[in-house]
C-alpha cells in the first residue's frame, strides 16, 4: 500500500525523487543521439576508414589530424568559414538592431511589417538558395534583367572568386537578419521603463539613451543572438551546396562542405570525422570562452 502511494507520488512528480523521472529520459536520449555518435566519430577519426576500401581499414592514431593540418584545402575552408561567419554576423547584428528598434516603436501597420520581415526566415534554406541562384543568373536572372533595364552592366556574381562569397553573404543576411531582429526585439520589449524615465528627466539625448541604457541592458539578448548565429554560421553548408558547390575553385568552400565532400563524395569517413571533431573543438572553445564570460557577467547598470 505504502509502496503504491509512493509510486503514485513519484509518477505525479510530488515526491522529492521525482527529478529522476524528468532527468534520466533526457539523459538517455542525449546519450543516444549526441554523445555516442560523437564518441564514435572520435573513434573513426583515429582510423583510416574509407567506405570504398574497407579492406584497408586500420588504426592510424593521429595521422588523419596531422594530414588535416597540412591540408591547404582545410586551412582555406577555415578561412572562408570564419570570413563568412564574422562578416555575416556583424551585418546581421547591426541590421537586426535597427529593425528591432524600428519595430519596438509604435508605427503604423506594425503587425504587417513584423510578419513581412519574418518571411525569409521561414523559407527552407535550400529554397532560398535556389531562389537567389536564379536571381543572380546573368542570362535569365531577375538581377540582370533589372540592371539591363537601367543600362547597367550585368554582374556575374557567382562566377568570380572576389564576388562569390560576398554574394552569398548577402543571401545569408537577407535570410537570417529577421531571426536576429526577433531575438533583439524580445530583449527590447523586456527592458524596464524606469531608467528611460530617469534619463528623460536628466535630459539625455537619444544617442546617449541608446548608448548608456539600451545597449548595456541589451547585452544578454545580443549575446544570445551572437552565439546562436555563430554556431549556425559556422556549420553553413546548404547554400554552398546549392549555389556554388564550393566554387569557383575552392573560394566558397566551408568546413562543413569540405567535410561533406570527404565523407559523401570521397567516402573517406575517417578524415571527415577528424575534420568534424576539429570543427566541434573550435565551436566549443569559442562558445565557451566568449559566450560564458559575457553571458555570466552581470549587465553593468550605473
Amino acid at each position, binding site marked *: 500500500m505504502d509502496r503504491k502511494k509512493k509510486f503514485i507520488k513519484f509518477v505525479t512528480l510530488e515526491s522529492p525523487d521525482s527529478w529522476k523521472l524528468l532527468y534520466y529520459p533526457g539523459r538517455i536520449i542525449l546519450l543516444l543521439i549526441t554523445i555516442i555518435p560523437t564518441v564514435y566519430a572520435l573513434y573513426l577519426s583515429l582510423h583510416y576508414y574509407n567506405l570504398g576500401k574497407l579492406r584497408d581499414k586500420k588504426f592510424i592514431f593521429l595521422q588523419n589530424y596531422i594530414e588535416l593540418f597540412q591540408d591547404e584545402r582545410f586551412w582555406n575552408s577555415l578561412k572562408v568559414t570564419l570570413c563568412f561567419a564574422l562578416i555575416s554576423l556583424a551585418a546581421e547584428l547591426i541590421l537586426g538592431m535597427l529593425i528591432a528598434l524600428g519595430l519596438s516603436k509604435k508605427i503604423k501597420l506594425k503587425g504587417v511589417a513584423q510578419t513581412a520581415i519574418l518571411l525569409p526566415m521561414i523559407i527552407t534554406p535550400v529554397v532560398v538558395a535556389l531562389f537567389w541562384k536564379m536571381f543572380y*543568373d546573368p*542570362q535569365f536572372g531577375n538581377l540582370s534583367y533589372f540592371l539591363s533595364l537601367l543600362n547597367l552592366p550585368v554582374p556575374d556574381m557567382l562566377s568570380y572568386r572576389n564576388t562569390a562569397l560576398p554574394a552569398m553573404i548577402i543571401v545569408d543576411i537577407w535570410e537570417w537578419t529577421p531571426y536576429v531582429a526577433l531575438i533583439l526585439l524580445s530583449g527590447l520589449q523586456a527592458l524596464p521603463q524606469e531608467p528611460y524615465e530617469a534619463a528623460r528627466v536628466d535630459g539625455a539625448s537619444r544617442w546617449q539613451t541608446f548608448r548608456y541604457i539600451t545597449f548595456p541592458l541589451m547585452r544578454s539578448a545580443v549575446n544570445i543572438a551572437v552565439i546562436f548565429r555563430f554556431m549556425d554560421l559556422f556549420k553553413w553548408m546548404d547554400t554552398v551546396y546549392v549555389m556554388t558547390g564550393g566554387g569557383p575553385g575552392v573560394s566558397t568552400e566551408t568546413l562543413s562542405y569540405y567535410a561533406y565532400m570527404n565523407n559523401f563524395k570521397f567516402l573517406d569517413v575517417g578524415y571527415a570525422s577528424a575534420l568534424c571533431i576539429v570543427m566541434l573543438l573550435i565551436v566549443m572553445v569559442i562558445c565557451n570562452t566568449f559566450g560564458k564570460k559575457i553571458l555570466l557577467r552581470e549587465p553593468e547598470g550605473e
Partner: protein
Amino acid sequence: MRRTTKKALAGLLLGSMAVGTVIPAYASEEKPYDGETIRVIMQAHTTTDSIQELLPQFEEMTGIDVELEVMPQEEMFDKTQIALAAGSSDYDVIMFDLMYTAQFADAGWIEELGPYVEKTGYDIDDFMPGYLNSLSYQGKLYGMPIYGESSMLMYNTEMFEQAGIEGAPKTKEEFDEAVAKLDAAGIPAIVYRGAKGHGMNVMPWTGMFLEMGGDWFDADGNLAVNSEAAVKAAEYYADLLKNHSVSGVESFNWDQCQLAIQQGKVAMCIDATNFASRLENPEKSTIVGKVGYSVIPDGMAIGWTVASGFAIPTEAQHKDAGWEFIQWALNKDSQLASCLNGDRCDPTRISVMNSDEFNEKYNYADGQWVATTIEALSTCPADYRPRIVEWLELGDGIATALSNVMQGDDAQAEFDKVQENFKDLKYPDYEMFNK
C-alpha cells in the same frame, strides 16, 4: 503422447506448406516471381518517365510489384553510393554511371551480371559494345546500359551565315578561324561546361587534354596530369570560355549550356549528342531547323562516351526479380516506345538506333545528326576519364584546378598541385590513349 501428436501435426503442416508453395509455381511457370516487391531507384530522366508509364504492363505480366523511387541525378548518386557502402538491402535495382563502375565493382557492392545474362539468354549483343564496355570492370559486366551519349559540335547555322562561315569547322585551325569571325561579328562563339565538377568542366578539358597528346597515366602507370598537354589544354579551355563565350559560363552545367544555344544566345556548343532532341523541339527551342551537327574538330578535342546503367546490389533481396525488371525495361519495345513517346534520342540498342521509326522521328538536319552520332560513338573511348576507384577524388582535384585557372591562376602551378596531391596513384594496366 501429446508431444508426438504435435510433431505429427507440425510435419503435416510443413508438408502442406511445401506442397502449397510448389503448386502455384508449377501452375504459373510464366510468373516465377509473382507477389515479390522490388525497389528500384532511378534518376529523373525522360527514359524514367517512360518506364514509369509502362510499368503497369510489367507488373501485370510478371506479378512483380515495383516501387520506383525517382530523384535528381546528383542526389541519386549520393544516395545510392551511401546505401551501397552501408550494405543496405533497400534497393533491388540501382542506377549508376560509368564513373562509378570501378568503385562499385571493386568494393564488391554490385553483382556481376554475366551469369544472369547466361542464365536467361538475354540478347546483350544488340547493345552498343561501347556502352557495355563502359559498365564493365576488368572484363566483367556489371551494368546494363539505360542511356548513353557521346559528344559533338552543334552550331547555329544562321549565326554562321551572319559571320560568313561556310559549313562546320573540321580542324582546329578552321575552328579558331570561325571563332575569330564570330568575334568580329560580335556573336558569342561557344559554350561548354564551365561549372566545377568531375562531370562538368573536367569533361571538355579532358577531350582537349587527350587530343593535345596528354594521357592520364604515363607508360609506367604513374599519374601524369601536369604534363605540357594538360597545361596547354587548360589554357586553351580557359581562353575560349573567358574571351569567346557568354557571360556566366564559368558556372554553367550542361543544362545551362543547352539553354544558351537553344535560346539562340551563342553560335556553337560542344556537348552531349542527346541535346538534339531538345534543340529541335519547337515548344522549347528558338532555333529549330537552324542547327548543324558535326564531329568535334580534329586537333581541338576528342569526344566522350558515357553511359548510365542498371545494376543489382550484392545485398539485394530480390535479385532475380530485379533482373527480370532490367530485362523488360531495356528490351527493344520499351526503348523504342520511350524514344517515340518522349524527347529521348539516346537508346542503347543498335536495333532501336537503326529502326525506321527512330530515324524518321530523329531525322535532324537531313540525317546529319544520326550520322554524326554514330560516328562519334564509334570513335570515342569509354576511358575518356580514367575509370579508377579514386576517380571522384582525382576528378574533384582537376575540377578545382581548372576552376582556378579560369580565375586567372597559373595553369602549370595548379596542375602541379594536383599531381603532388595524387602522386601515389599508380595504374600500370592503364591503356594509354596516345601511345
